[in-house]
């Protein structure tokens, strides 16, 4: 609250305090993990590692379970994202532009998943998959992760389609362009960047999705996050987990860069009900 009384010339003490505390608490742990990834020897109680090096990068990347998990995760994320785009983008266009009975209630039905505690819902879905023999299968995990992407992949593109300038579309129609031509040349280029951001978010979100993959996929489907769980639980070599963490963080970092355009201006928080 000191910020209310603060004038321009005084030093922003509360800001400095927040910056220091948050740097220690939020960046600090990540720096420790990154340090471990480039460490060859670090024995307690030395404050810095005795020996830095890349030895464990070679060892971690040489493990077949890491490669299998990475390939499986990329395949899963690609399949889920493509399927999601295939079924959600036309639906988003319909929600944004067409009138049909029950439009509003169907649009808000995608919120239903958010009224339940998530893992409870996953367990309820798993009980159904158990009867359908989808447990431990690739397509079982695809289905559960697909449901997780629905709301993002419909709501963000709906906003994108609605933001397209209707007068430009009508002008194009007036000079004789076909509806498909209008969509391809006018609508898509304007809505494209936001839709791309939604697709990217759903790819990255699926890549990191842990709970559905673990609950539905185990033991047959081992994605990167599931492999990481087993490394945390059973792996004695700390560096394997650290190297995986740094590797795993790369897609997230790309998402961070792209999400800036979607998240800006508090619009994102309003999407969450703020």
């Amino acid at each position, binding site marked *: 609250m000191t910020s209310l009384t603060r004038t321009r010339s005084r030093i*922003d003490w509360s800001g400095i305090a927040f910056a220091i505390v948050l740097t220690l608490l939020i960046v600090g742990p990540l720096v420790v993990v990154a340090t471990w990834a480039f460490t060859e020897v670090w024995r307690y109680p030395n404050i810095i590692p005795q020996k830095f090096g890349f030895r464990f990068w070679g060892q971690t990347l040489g493990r077949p379970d890491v490669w299998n998990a990475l390939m499986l995760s990329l395949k899963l994320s690609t399949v889920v994202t493509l399927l999601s785009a295939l079924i959600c983008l036309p639906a988003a266009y319909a929600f944004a532009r067409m009138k049909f009975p029950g439009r509003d209630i169907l649009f808000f039905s995608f919120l239903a998943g958010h009224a339940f505690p998530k893992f409870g819902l996953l367990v309820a879905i798993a009980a159904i998959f158990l009867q359908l023999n989808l447990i431990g299968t690739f397509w079982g995990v695809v289905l559960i992760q697909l449901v997780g992407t629905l709301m993002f992949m419909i709501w963000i593109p709906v906003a994108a389609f609605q933001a397209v300038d209707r007068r430009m579309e009508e002008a194009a129609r007036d000079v004789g362009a076909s509806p498909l031509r209008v969509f391809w040349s006018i609508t898509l280029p304007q809505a494209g960047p936001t839709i791309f951001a939604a697709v990217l978010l759903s790819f990255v979100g699926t890549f990191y999705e842990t709970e559905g993959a673990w*609950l539905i996929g185990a033991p047959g489907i081992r994605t990167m996050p599931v492999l990481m769980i087993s490394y945390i639980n059973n792996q004695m070599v700390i560096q394997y987990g650290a190297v995986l963490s740094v590797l795993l963080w790369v897609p997230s970092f790309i998402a961070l860069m792209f999400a800036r355009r979607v998240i800006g201006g508090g619009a994102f928080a309003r999407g969450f*009900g703020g």
Partner: protein
Amino acid sequence: MSEFVERAAPPLAETAASRRPFGLLLVAIPVFLVIWLVIWPAINAISRTIWRVDADGNTGFDLSSYAFFFSDRYSLDNLAVTLWTTMVCAVLLLVICLPIALYLRFSQGRLPAYVQALAILPMFVPSIILAFAFIRVLGPNGMIDILLNAVGLPKIRTPYLTPWGPVIGLVWDNIPLTVLILLSGLGSVANQFIEAARDVGANAFRVFWHIILPRISNSILVALSFSVLGIFSSFTLPYLLGPASPEMLGPFMQRTLRDLQDPIGAMTQAVVAFGFCILFGLFYVRSVARNRGK
């Protein structure tokens, strides 16, 4: 996002009539998925746990799985630790995020931008990496122990594998959205209100209590609902950082379903979780829908 909605023009008249069934067709698959994999599982979980087949093969109303849950010491301990964790996390989140949001709302410049970037960063750290970082920092012989040892202090009693482990992890994980939701609520508090109150001599606390708090109470409730829904049935962090017994409902459900092969038991636990969260869930959904509908 919502500003886009406001600009939505009414659909063209000629397309409205001719494409009526076509629009329904386009939304059919996602809507079917929501019904099949969200609404139906919830109904199925409730109906299969209260409407069960008895020993003679007759189907009948039977609450025995709930009777077991609420009389079993272990289940009740798990429920208690879940409620405790959720409550402690909710309080901690408010205590931590409200000052950050207030600071960000009333300052501008490069330092607040840095603080905001830090507060949002955990959103882009997958919880699995967070769990690993937690163990390396707060676990036995972790970074904190190393630093304490270096200045000649005794080691900490590590929160790893205690109920405080999931609390710390979940609070860390939920800071970004709580800050963003509170910040968006604070955006609706006009500067004139505050200046007017200050002109008549109100101090910072009174401004906060009488001017700001009443205007952001809805945002506080939304932020709380969102974190309660996420924390109550969280799985990854309690599973990796929490004690094996008592365990939170998330790991408990997973173990009941996959290790004990008891879907009825797991669904009973899921329905209990639904019951405890229903008010928060409905409130949250209503707020989001109202924001979108505006």
